């Protein structure tokens, strides 16, 4: 949509920009909460251990570390009982056969019970949170109100709809501040060694959330690129420097290409997995100026931090202080997981101002949400944004009013792409090097790092024991 808007040269109205930002902000809140509690927490939290917790002590712990609206020993007792009933049923369902009891789990039973309770609370909250999407976007998942030129939900610009949005936003942001962040800090304090594991070198953020029609100048989350962890050397990122490689991917042979010239020609065969020097992935290998780059919350937070972003700097510095860890600990699995929470505070807080801006506009009589446009015979356009999982770029070439070429490079392509023409590792591949594995048959440590990227794919990681040469294959889901 932004690529087409760029190609046809339309500037969307102010209300449309704000409504899109609000939807996008709600997406960050929702995605990051679900990732932390439902896609990542069980790498650190042992639910089985929660069964042996003392509910009273859990209540005390919870009161000390968080401002959760629920608590008390009766509450924790009922959660524990519910889990016990579940276990006693003999049907462990989606919690069956995980790495429970693994020595790498470090939380005491009480912390495990507290986190398990919040796992359940977060399941309910997220269903409510996405109602923000339904208000201006018809439904979630897969919103339907966004069109080239603006947004169609003009009839939802009413005081009651906006008030409802604000109410849900508030409930969500309170959860972020009173539950999510305290949980994140409580868990992190037991796993500080993960501040030195799972890091990568280069970081790219296209940035997003434009506060005016000027991009990239007005982006709330700024655009930039950091190479070799050099924060002081942060530079403006330029889309012209992106190429995609297919040397190790299951596509027909071709040289690295900029997305405007990009091709998607999948091999017309049953692809074979050839890890040595052959092809081993459906994902292409994107490179910035020839280098692999991590994208996502950590990249965004580092770029914003390096550029002196007031809100981001404040939350990052106070968190580092609370945990007693240095800035360089950000380049890690722990840093990645923390960055996700920290940007949720900053973006979530900013949303309230955007709602007020929207109200002000409507008050002044401006209800325009769409700008008409015409399709040119020939044009090119690029749309750069930063979504929950990282930098997303779309490139379009239009000829005879039709799509001539369309390419997109999405976050998980950046993070989980394979090696390139020059044999350089993809970011997740790089991050896994040096990961300590206590038990190769139950490599929970691998899950921690891979999940910390919030991958939008299922993938396989193969572990080879250097002593016995035994190969363990694990699937990361």
């Amino acid at each position, binding site marked *: 949509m932004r690529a087409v808007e760029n190609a046809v040269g339309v500037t969307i109205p102010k209300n449309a920009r704000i409504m899109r930002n609000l939807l996008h902000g709600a997406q960050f809140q929702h995605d990051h909460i*679900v990732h932390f509690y*439902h*896609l990542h927490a*069980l790498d650190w939290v042992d639910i089985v251990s929660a069964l042996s917790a003392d509910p009273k002590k859990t209540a005390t712990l919870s009161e000390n570390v968080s401002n959760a609206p629920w608590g008390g020993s009766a509450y924790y007792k*009922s*959660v524990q*009982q*519910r889990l016990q*009933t*579940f276990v006693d*049923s003999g*049907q462990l*369902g*989606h*919690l*069956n*056969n*995980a790495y429970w009891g693994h020595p790498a789990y470090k939380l005491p039973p009480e912390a495990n019970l507290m986190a398990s309770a919040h796992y*359940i609370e977060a*399941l*309910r909250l997220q*269903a*409510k949170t996405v*109602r923000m999407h*339904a*208000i201006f*976007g*018809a*439904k*979630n*998942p*897969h919103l*339907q*109100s966004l*069109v080239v*030129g*603006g947004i*169609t*939900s*003009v*009839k*939802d610009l009413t005081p009651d709809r906006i008030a409802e949005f604000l109410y849900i936003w508030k409930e969500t942001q309170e959860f972020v501040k009173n539950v999510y962040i305290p949980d994140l800090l409580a868990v992190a304090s037991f796993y500080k060694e993960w501040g030195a594991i799972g890091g990568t070198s280069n970081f790219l953020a296209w940035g997003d959330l434009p506060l005016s029609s000027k991009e990239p100048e007005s982006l709330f989350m700024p655009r930039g690129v950091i190479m070799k962890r050099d924060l002081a050397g942060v530079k403006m990122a330029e889309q012209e420097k992106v190429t995609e490689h297919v040397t190790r991917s299951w596509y027909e042979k071709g040289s690295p290409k900029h997305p405007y010239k990009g091709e998607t020609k*999948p091999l*017309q*065969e*049953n*692809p074979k*997995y050839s890890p040595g020097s052959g092809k081993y992935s459906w994902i292409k290998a994107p490179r910035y100026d020839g280098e692999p780059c991590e994208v996502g919350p950590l990249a965004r937070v580092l770029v914003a931090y390096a550029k002196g972003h007031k809100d981001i700097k404040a939350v990052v510095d106070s968190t580092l202080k609370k945990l007693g860890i240095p800035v360089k600990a950000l380049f890690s699995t722990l840093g990645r997981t923390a960055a996700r929470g920290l940007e949720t505070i900053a973006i979530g807080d900013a949303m309230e101002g955007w709602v007020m801006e929207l109200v002000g506009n409507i008050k002044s009589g401006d*209800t325009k*949400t*769409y700008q*008409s446009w015409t399709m040119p015979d020939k044009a090119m356009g690029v749309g750069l944004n930063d979504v929950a999982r990282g930098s997303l770029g779309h490139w379009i070439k239009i000829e005879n009013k039709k799509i001539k070429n369309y390419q997109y490079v999405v976050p998980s392509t950046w993070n989980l792409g394979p090696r390139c023409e020059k044999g350089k590792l993809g970011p997740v591949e790089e991050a896994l090097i040096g990961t300590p594995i206590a038990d190769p*048959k139950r490599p929970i440590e691998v899950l921690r790092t891979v999940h910390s990227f919030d991958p939008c794919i*299922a993938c*396989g990681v193969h572990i080879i024991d250097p002593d016995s040469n035994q190969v363990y*294959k*694990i*699937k*990361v*889901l």
Partner: protein
Amino acid sequence: MEKEKEFYKRLEKKGVSRRDFMKYCTFLTATMGLSSSFVPKVAEVFAAQAQRPPVIWLHFAECTGCSEALLRSMYPWIDQLLLEVISVEYHETIMAAAGHQAEENLHNAVKKYNGKFICVVEGAVATKYNGGYGKIGGKTFLDIAKDVCSKAAAVICMGTCSAYGGVQAAKPNPGGYKGVGDALGIKTLNIPGCPPNPINFVGTVVNYLLLGKLPALDDLGRPLFAYGKSIHDQCPRRSHFENGEFVTEFGSEEASMGYCLYKVGCKGPETFNNCPIVKFNDGTSWPVEAGHPCIGCSEPDFWDKMSPFYEEM
């Protein structure tokens, strides 16, 4: 009476208040098109289970939007579904197990519940090159589907991709993607949509638990309670259609008046679903209410047949 008391006590132990409970049972019963006399029976299904029905959820070529949709369930809440109503034995996104242990779960559940589990499929199946375009742990979607679906008590296709192929099956379809029914030559119960409303999935499962059989289906395998009428016939903007009051451009006066979206491409007349009645995310909205034409996302081959989305049919 004593029994009923017991029953609510047990519910409360599980963290469900009586009021919430009756609310979602009533909502579900209505969505399923059953009379209100069924509400207590629906309630029983949720509470009186000695063994939760096992569900094996397979992911093939998909975007996980249908799983995300399920997570949005509020009648009942998703934690109640997972912990008290059904037993999700295998589900790539939400299961805690990984790697070998995850595959072991699938293998063991299929064996243990042979002929008794509900198999839910999300995503299309690659059929060209021996299924080479879609594999999990070296095994093709096609082989996994053949193996697991044949042992299920029922196969429910969640979403347009598993039901009819979806976006993967749109031209040029390099991997030969098909819906599960087509790929395997079997009959499936289809809950299409991109993604479907989770209430239609829950309603189907409850129907199965309550009456011991799957709900009545149309010739495309869709439950009639949800897909029996067209969007057009249930649309609150229908009178504008009859009066010839149309939106011809987004952002126009007609758009802000809530006129009919037929001329900007609405596919409501050819799409069968209950979106206008049930709506999404706790009845908050649906595409036409948000001023956007229906794109026909629950119809077979909608990417090819319903596009261009913004042009009159």
